[in-house]
C-alpha cells in the first residue's frame, strides 16, 4: 500500500455503563447539587495484552469506578484515562453551550500540558477524556457527549505501509507485558525501546494501540504524540503502530512545511455516532433506575412467571385492568385490597364513612398508630387513608377513597332525604364506573342496596361476611348474565325469609361484627379474592353454573368456614324468587322508581317484604304452622279437656 496523504485514524468511542449515570445522579443529588464546576473522572480501555481481534475500534469505558479518586484500579486488565466531566444544570445549557469553544479549551489544556513535557512517558497527559452531560433525574434520562481531544499537526504519510518484523513485535510485546503501561516509545539504533527524554537523532517511534483494528489504521490517540514530535522539531519519522493481537504496521510520516509551532493548532475530538455523525447521545435508563418503574415491572414479572410456568392460559391483563370497588375499608377491606394488589390489580376505590380508631391498626393492615390521632385527634378518614396506603405500598396503583355512608335498609331517612339521596346517587355512579364490587361492610343491612345495585348495573359482586369464628364468602348470581333464571345463583339474601333490618341500633359490644377471631378476616378476604380471580378466569361466564370450573379448576358459589373445628364447606344455592334483594320484583321496582323505591324500603322493611312477596310467604308460613298446630290436636294426646295446658303450649 503506497500513499502520500494524511494518515487515517480510528476515532475513539465511549462505552457508558448505566452505573456511570447512577453514580453521577447520586453525586448530583447529594454533593454537587447546582454546582456545575467540573469533576475529575476516568475511563478505562482494555490492556493491549488482552485485546482480541474483536476489539476493532478504540473504546474507553465509563462506569461507577469512573468517579473513584484511586488511580489505576485494575492494573492487569485495564488502562485508565483521566479527564473531567461537566454536568450542566439545564437541558438548554447542555444544548446551547458553545461546543467548539469548549473542545478548544480542553484541547489547549492538553496542549499546555505537553508543551511542558520532554518525554512521552506519562501517557495520561497526552490523551485525556472529557464529557459534557445533563442529568434529568426525574426521568432518569442522561444527555451526554464525550470528547477525546486530538491536536492536529500536518503529517503526510509517504511510502508503503509494512508489517513489522516478528522481532520488533515481540520486543514491544515484552515491554508492554512487563512494565507499567506506556504508550509511546522511541526506538534507538540498537533496537532499544526508550520512553525517557527524547533523543533528537532517533526517528523511529512505537505507538501502542488500544485497539486491534484489522484494517491497519491506528487509533486517533497517536495524533497528540505526533503533535508533540512536531513541536520537538521532528520532520520525518517512522511510526510503528503496535497491535497486540493484530497486524502491527510501520509507516513513514513527513511533516508539512506549513507547520508553525507558534500557531494554535486545529483541535478535533467530539465523539461521532455509529454512522459517523457529530452529535450527543441520550440514554433513557428509567427502566433500570426508576424505583417506581422497577416495582411495576417486578410485580408484573412475578405474575408472568406464574403464567409462563404454571398457568399459560391465565389472562393477567384482564385482572389488571379491572376497576375494583371496595365497600368497607376495615379489616376485610384492608386484606382484600392487599391480596388484589398481589394479583396485579391497579385500580381501587374504597367507600367508608369511618375514621381510623385506636383499635384498628392491629387488625387492619393498611393503618398505623399515627393514623389514629391525625387530624387533631380525630383520626384519618379510613377511605382516604386506605387509598394512600395502597399507593405507598405500590406507587403504580390508582386508588381513591369516598367518605360516605352506604344507605342502609331499616335505617329510616328523614323527610328531606338529603344525605341519603346524595349517597345513593354517588353509590350508583361508583357502580357504573367499576367492574367488580366487594361487599366488606360490618353489617347485614348495609349490603342490601349494593346487592340490588350489583344486579341492576350488571357487576360482579363478591361478598365476605364474618361471625365470631365463622365466615361466609360468596359470589352473587347475576340476573343479567344468566340465560335461565331458574339456574341463576343466589345472593346473600336468598336464604332469608325476612327483609334485612336495623341490626346496629342498641347492639351490645359483643355483638359487633369486629368481635371475631382475628384470623377469620384474612382467611375470608383471601378466599374472596381467589374466588373472584377464579371467577373472571372462567372460559365463559354464561355457561358456567354453580360449581363451574375455571382455569384454576372449581369456582364454588359459597364457602362457609368454621374455626371452632377448622372446617369449611362449599355450598351452592340458586336464587330465591322472593329474595328481598335480587328477585325480579325488587329489581323491576328499583328500575322503575329508583331512589323512591330505595327510600321506601329503608323507611319500612314491610314495604319491601310486600313487594318481593316475602310478606305473602310469611303469611303462608304462619297459616301452615297454624294448620300444623291444629293437626296436632290435643285430643290425640288423650288429655282431659278441662285441664288448661295452653300456657305452656304457646
Amino acid at each position, binding site marked *: 500500500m503506497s500513499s502520500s496523504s494524511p494518515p487515517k485514524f480510528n476515532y475513539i468511542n465511549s*462505552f457508558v455503563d448505566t452505573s456511570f449515570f447512577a453514580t453521577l445522579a447520586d453525586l448530583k443529588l447529594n454533593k454537587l447539587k447546582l454546582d456545575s464546576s467540573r469533576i475529575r473522572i476516568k475511563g478505562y480501555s482494555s490492556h493491549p495484552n488482552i485485546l482480541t481481534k474483536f476489539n476493532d475500534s478504540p473504546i474507553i469505558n465509563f462506569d461507577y469506578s469512573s468517579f473513584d479518586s484511586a488511580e489505576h484500579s485494575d492494573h492487569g486488565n*485495564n488502562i485508565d484515562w483521566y479527564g473531567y466531566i461537566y454536568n450542566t444544570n439545564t437541558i438548554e445549557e447542555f444544548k446551547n453551550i458553545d461546543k467548539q469553544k469548549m473542545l478548544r479549551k480542553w484541547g489547549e489544556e492538553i496542549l499546555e500540558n505537553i508543551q511542558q513535557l520532554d518525554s512521552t512517558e506519562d501517557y495520561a497527559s497526552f490523551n485525556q477524556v472529557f464529557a459534557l452531560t445533563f442529568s434529568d433525574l426525574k426521568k432518569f434520562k442522561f444527555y451526554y457527549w464525550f470528547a477525546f481531544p486530538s491536536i492536529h499537526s500536518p503529517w503526510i504519510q509517504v511510502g508503503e505501509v509494512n508489517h513489522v518484523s516478528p522481532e520488533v513485535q515481540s520486543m514491544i510485546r515484552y515491554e508492554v507485558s512487563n512494565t507499567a503501561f506506556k504508550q509511546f516509545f522511541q526506538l534507538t539504533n540498537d533496537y532499544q525501546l526508550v520512553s525517557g527524554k527524547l533523543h533528537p537523532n532517533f526517528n523511529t517511534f512505537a505507538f501502542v494501540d488500544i485497539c486491534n483494528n484489522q484494517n491497519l489504521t491506528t487509533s486517533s490517540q497517536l495524533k497528540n504524540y505526533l503533535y508533540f514530535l512536531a513541536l520537538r522539531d521532528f520532520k520525518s519519522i517512522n511510526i510503528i503502530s503496535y497491535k497486540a493481537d493484530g497486524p502491527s504496521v510501520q509507516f513513514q510520516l513527513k511533516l508539512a512545511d506549513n507547520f508553525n509551532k507558534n500557531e494554535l493548532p486545529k483541535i478535533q475530538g467530539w465523539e461521532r455516532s455509529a454512522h459517523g455523525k457529530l452529535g450527543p447521545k441520550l440514554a433513557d435508563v428509567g427502566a*433500570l433506575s426508576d424505583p417506581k418503574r422497577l416495582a411495576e415491572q417486578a410485580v408484573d*414479572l412475578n405474575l408472568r412467571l406464574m403464567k409462563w410456568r404454571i398457568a399459560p392460559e391465565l389472562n393477567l391483563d384482564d385482572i389488571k385492568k379491572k376497576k375494583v370497588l371496595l365497600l368497607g375499608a376495615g379489616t376485610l377491606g384492608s386484606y382484600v385490597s392487599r391480596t388484589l394488589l398481589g394479583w396485579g390489580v391497579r385500580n381501587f376505590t374504597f367507600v367508608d364513612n369511618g375514621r381510623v380508631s385506636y383499635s384498628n391498626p392491629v387488625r387492619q393492615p393498611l393503618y398505623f398508630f399515627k393514623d389514629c390521632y391525625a387530624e387533631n385527634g380525630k383520626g384519618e378518614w379510613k377511605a382516604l387513608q386506605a387509598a394512600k396506603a395502597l399507593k405507598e405500598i405500590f406507587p403504580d396503583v390508582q386508588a381513591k377513597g369516598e367518605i360516605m355512608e352506604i344507605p342502609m335498609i331499616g335505617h329510616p331517612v328523614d323527610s328531606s332525604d338529603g344525605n341519603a339521596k346524595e349517597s345513593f346517587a354517588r353509590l350508583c355512579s361508583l357502580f357504573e364506573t367499576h367492574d367488580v364490587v366487594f361487599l366488606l361492610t360490618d353489617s347485614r343491612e348495609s349490603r342490601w342496596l349494593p346487592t340490588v345495585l350489583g344486579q341492576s348495573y350488571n357487576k360482579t359482586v363478591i361478598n365476605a361476611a364474618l361471625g365470631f369464628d365463622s365466615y361466609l364468602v360468596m359470589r352473587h348470581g347475576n340476573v343479567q348474565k344468566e340465560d335461565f333464571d331458574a339456574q341463576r345463583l343466589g345472593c346473600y339474601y336468598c336464604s332469608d325469609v325476612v327483609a334485612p333490618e336495623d341490626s346496629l341500633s342498641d347492639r351490645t359490644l359483643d355483638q359487633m361484627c369486629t368481635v371475631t377471631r382475628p384470623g377469620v378476616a384474612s382467611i375470608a378476604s383471601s378466599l374472596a379474592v381467589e374466588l373472584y380471580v377464579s371467577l373472571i378466569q372462567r372460559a365463559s361466564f354464561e355457561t358456567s353454573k354453580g360449581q363451574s370450573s375455571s382455569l384454576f379448576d372449581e369456582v364454588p358459589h359459597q364457602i362457609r368456614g368454621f374455626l371452632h373445628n377448622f372446617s369449611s364447606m362449599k355450598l351452592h344455592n340458586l336464587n330465591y324468587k322472593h329474595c328481598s334483594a335480587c328477585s325480579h320484583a325488587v329489581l323491576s321496582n328499583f328500575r322503575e322508581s329508583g331512589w323512591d323505591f330505595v327510600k321506601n324500603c329503608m323507611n319500612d322493611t314491610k314495604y319491601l317484604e310486600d313487594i318481593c312477596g316475602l310478606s305473602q310467604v310469611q303469611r303462608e308460613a304462619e297459616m301452615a304452622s297454624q294448620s300444623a298446630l291444629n293437626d296436632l290436636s290435643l285430643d290425640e294426646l288423650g288429655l282431659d279437656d278441662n285441664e288448661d295446658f295452653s300456657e305452656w303450649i304457646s
Partner: protein
Amino acid sequence: MEYELTNTRFNQYLLAFNKHLLETTVLDSSDSHPGDKQSQSLFSFTNSTVKTVAQEKKYVLNQIKVRHPESPNRSLLVTFTISYDDFFTCPVFYFRIFEEVEIENETKSRALLTIEDMDESFQHLLGIHSEIRKFTNISFDSHHMSPTSDIWMYLHPCDTKDVMRSFKMFHRNTSEEQQVLDYFTLWYNTFGMGALFPRLCLRIKPTALS
C-alpha cells in the same frame, strides 16, 4: 474435572472462553443456515472488556449490537456480563437490553426491561417465542459486582449446578482447559445467551458433544 467450576478455575479460563465466545458466536437465522452471511452481518460485538474487583472477582462485559433488518438507524444492544456466583458456585449471566436509534444528530438509547418491549423484528430475528419465556427465569437486581443500585436482569443461578451436573460430559481424557471451556460453552448456551436469545448462540465444538 468435577462437575463444578471453582472461582479459581473460572478466573483462570474466563478470558480464553471469552475469546472463544467472540470468535464462535453465530446468529442462527430461522430462514437460513446457521452462520448464514446475511444474518451474520446483522450483528457484531461492539465492546468486550474484563474487570477485576475486590478479592479476585473477575468478570467480562461484552456488548452485542444487532442491527434492525429493515431500518438501518435502529439497533438492539445486548450488554452482558459473565461472572462467578459465590453462593451458587457457578457462573452467572447478567444482561441488559437497549434499543438504540440514531435520529438526525442524536443517538438515543432506551433500556428495556421486558422482552415484550422489544421491536417485533428483533424478537423474530433472535428467536424469541413464548415457549422460551416459559422456561427462562429472569430476575432483576443490582449487579453483584457493582456497588451501584441500577438494575440488571439476570438468569437466576439456582438450577445451574444441578443441570450442569446432569450433562455428564466431563469424563473424558481431554485437558483441563478443554473441559473448563466445554463447561463454559454448555453453560453459556443453557444459562446464558442461549436461554435468552436462542438464535444468538455459540457453535458447539464437536468435542463437547462426543
